[in-house]
């Protein structure tokens, strides 16, 4: 038992540093800068600790905590994305005078919660991790507490998310009642016989999960929360919890519910199609860039869920690649949003980008690459993300899903290239305020190079991902 502690070193290290930071921040005034930097530094350390953990698919603490390639991969992805989010949003946080030391600490707590979500092999641990993450996210959404919209976003997110957590918990308790265990493997064995109670439980849990990844029809909070929260928080929301959400989604579908594939498959197909269509259609008229990316992320979640809905091994691997490329694209996108600052104020209106390619040719080119990648145009990485998804979808013979999915990419291409149009075809306005911000530039360049050179060797991650097994 005590040996199992060794496997938890990354998590323990993370929680210890959270405590140290809190105590340090309480006793020392104006410690935002220091703690922020320390947070940025400890993330690579945690990555190193995870990589250093050599094990082979073990489950510790009475089979409640799973350590496998899947969880390590997802944790590293979460950490890397958070790293980029942190380095690019620092200047923004200072500019909106939100430099409280709690900000990075809460982000770390959210990451800790995601770690437990990703690794959970037990309903209780899963729920604890989820709530740890969600509570941190409520605070983050309303962190700009003097701003009405931020507070509104926080409240809105809290109320709706609490409702979905309630449904999720109800589902969990039903599942426990009907299968007699909270352990995923035991549930998986007992759930086999068709039982109306477990199906109810499965649907309640699906609703909760769909809410967390903002899939239609549980997406209503997304645009408002994305728009209302400070952009630094939005960038975190759009990337990191989505990774964790999709990871949990995969684990639920492939572990406790794997034997009732025919029960959940069509629900997921519906969720997927609805998300793709709504995300594509509703984004067309958006003028606010954060609302636009909210709808865009809804439609991207649709594609990711399409991969899961196949129920096959290639399906969930394609989803992993999808979420990876999705994070890279959103890092680039938000890095650009952090650049959109004119006369001391951050702007969010798409029309304000008009003619920016003349004033900032390189930044505009980078956003162009990101946008075409989001639209899924080859040879950029976004195409391969969709390609892998539709490979597995068509392998499972779901042609209708594939056709609808690809047709909606055309619709969504419209609003992505509308931004390109504003940047390149319209007449220029005043340039953005130029500030040296290596975090933003670095993230933007990283994202662009990743997206535009992915085609040279698209199987770069296949080696790692092929090691990931279905649980």
């Amino acid at each position, binding site marked *: 038992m005590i040996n199992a502690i060794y496997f938890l070193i990354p998590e323990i290290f993370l929680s210890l540093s959270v405590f140290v930071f809190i105590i340090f921040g309480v006793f020392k005034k104006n410690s935002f800068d220091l703690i922020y930097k320390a947070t940025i530094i400890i993330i690579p350390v945690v990555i190193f600790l995870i990589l250093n953990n050599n094990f082979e698919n073990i489950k510790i603490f009475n089979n409640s905590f799973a350590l496998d390639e899947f969880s390590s991969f997802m944790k590293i992805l979460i950490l890397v994305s958070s790293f980029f989010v942190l380095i690019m949003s620092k200047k923004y946080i200072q500019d909106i005078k939100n430099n409280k030391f709690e900000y990075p600490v809460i982000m770390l707590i959210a990451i800790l919660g995601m770690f437990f979500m990703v690794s959970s092999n037990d309903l209780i641990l899963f729920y604890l991790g989820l709530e740890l993450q969600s509570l941190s996210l409520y605070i983050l959404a309303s962190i700009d507490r003097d701003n009405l919209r931020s507070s509104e976003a926080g409240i809105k997110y809290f109320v709706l998310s609490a409702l979905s957590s309630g449904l999720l918990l109800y589902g969990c308790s039903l599942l426990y009642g009907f299968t007699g265990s909270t352990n995923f493997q035991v549930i998986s064995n007992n759930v086999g016989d068709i039982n109306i109670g477990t199906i109810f439980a499965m649907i309640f849990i699906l609703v909760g999960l769909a809410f967390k990844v903002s899939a239609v029809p549980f997406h209503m909070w997304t645009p408002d929360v994305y728009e209302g929260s400070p952009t630094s928080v939005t960038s975190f929301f759009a990337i990191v919890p989505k990774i964790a959400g999709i990871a949990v989604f995969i684990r639920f579908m492939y572990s406790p519910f794997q034997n009732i594939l025919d029960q959940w498959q069509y629900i997921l197909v519906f969720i997927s199609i609805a998300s793709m269509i709504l995300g594509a259609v509703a984004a067309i008229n958006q003028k606010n860039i954060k609302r636009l990316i909210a709808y865009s992320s809804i439609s991207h979640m649709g594609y990711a869920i399409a991969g899961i809905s196949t129920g096959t091994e290639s399906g969930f691997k394609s989803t992993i690649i999808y979420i990876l490329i999705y994070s890279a694209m959103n890092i680039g996108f938000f890095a650009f949003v952090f650049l959109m600052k004119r006369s001391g104020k951050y702007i969010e209106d798409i029309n304000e980008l008009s003619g920016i390619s003349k004033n900032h040719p390189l930044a505009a080119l980078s956003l162009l690459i990101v946008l075409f990648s989001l639209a899924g*145009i080859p040879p950029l990485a976004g*195409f391969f993300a969709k390609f892998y998804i539709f*490979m597995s979808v068509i392998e499972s013979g779901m042609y209708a899903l594939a*056709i609808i999915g690809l*047709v909606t990419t055309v619709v969504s291409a419209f609003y992505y290239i509308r931004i390109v*149009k504003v940047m390149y075809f319209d007449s220029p306005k005043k340039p953005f305020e130029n500030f040296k911000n290596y975090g933003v530039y670095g993230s933007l360049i990283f994202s662009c190079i990743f997206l535009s050179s992915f085609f040279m060797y698209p*199987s770069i991650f*296949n080696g790692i991902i092929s090691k990931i097994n279905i649980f």
Partner: protein
Amino acid sequence: MNFPILSSITFLPLIGAFFVFLTKSESNQVNKGAIYVSLFTSFANFFLVLFLWYSFDKSSPNFQFVEEAVWISGFIKFKFGIDGISILFILLTAFIIPICVISCVNSIKNRLKEFLIAILVLETFMIGVFCSLDLVIFYLFFEAGLIPMFLIIGIWGGPRRVYSAFKFFLFTLLGSVLMLIAIISIYWITGTTDVTEIYKIKIPAEFQNLLWLAFFSSFAVKMPMWPVHTWLPDAHVEAPTAGSVILAAILLKMAGYGFLRFSVGMFPLASEYFTPLVFTLSVIAIIYTSLVALMQDDMKKLIAYSSVAHMGYVTLGIFTFNKQGIEGGIIQMFSHGLISAALFLCVGVLYDRAHSRLINNYGGVVNILPKYSFILMIFVLGTLGLPGTSGFVGEFLVLVGAFKVNFLVAILASIGVVLAAAYILWLYKRVIFGKLENNQIKEMKDLNKSEMGVLVSIGILVIFFGFYPEPLFNTVNVSVDNLINNYNMEINRLSVLK
């Protein structure tokens, strides 16, 4: 392994584009460095392609200069290779791009550097389309071309450029996504996306029709065939001269090439089944768009509609499945690539001087621009298919092939020849002859050296291939034979089975 010449010609322009990107402009207007780098790259590529043509073994039906590499491990190999059909298109591409570079130096006033980068990147994608022997790689290059073309139309285009660019982008994207589904389905049916393997394995008959339709949706939009041709006139009218040239000369040919390589090559049965559909659409395209062309008052729009009509001959020729028809279709594409490029350049010459594309604004140009009028004459005659120009060879062969297969279709298609003469000669008459009324025209200067060089070199090729098309036939001959043999074998095999 030999020197990877196909990858070199494909990716050389991309490297050139990178160096153009690094150049610094001396002032807002002038950027000599960018011009020299792109000229050097495009000419170097052209000579490489000439060398490739020279060293290409014209007597072998196999794919040559094949390059293979692991790309997506376990799924897809990166595979390049050419046969007699593809090398002709590569040649055309490599010839047209330097011409575009030269012409845009005169006509593009702002952001020249970005324009040159877009053209060079586009060259990479276009050559990649003709080189690739793998469906996914093909799709990659086929779609990737949308990005630079979208920007070329949108940034440097005319007043309605936004509408046209969006229409172009969304139309072609919508057409292509179905092809992607078909490609992935082929992978799961045959276990490979390597075209040569698929030729051997052969796609089962029950899947062919649907897959053919999916590919057709993409190629028909790109070609463009009636009734999905409406994006083309818009795109042509708004695109800058060099953009129109690339669009007409090469981008449209990708679809024709796709029909030959994929539709006919992989789905012979479905191709035969859908021949009446293609014939109908082609004949409608030939007659209807010729009539529409007659009524245009914008020169570029007129040429755009004539392109649709000429592409009608190409599809007609390809789907006759006999040697005359297919070779005629290929020669027609090649010659249309030259002639339409030249016509757009000629319109560009007038537009640069008088800033109008409306036919009514001109008249009596011959008095002011005698050299220009003479050269335009060659291309006008080429468009209507006068014997002695390359336009004649292709059209004639297509009609011969069509008469063999279907008398009615051939007769109807022949009407198009008459209509072509009507609209293009009428255009020539209204623009070049008549009274000199517009004062703006009186101040125009005749062709300068670079325009002269470009137009004369195309003119020489048009006449040369009109009198002596042997080099073209020589190149495609064996590959077309091979294509037709495979097609007939497959049809016979399946009819025996039935």
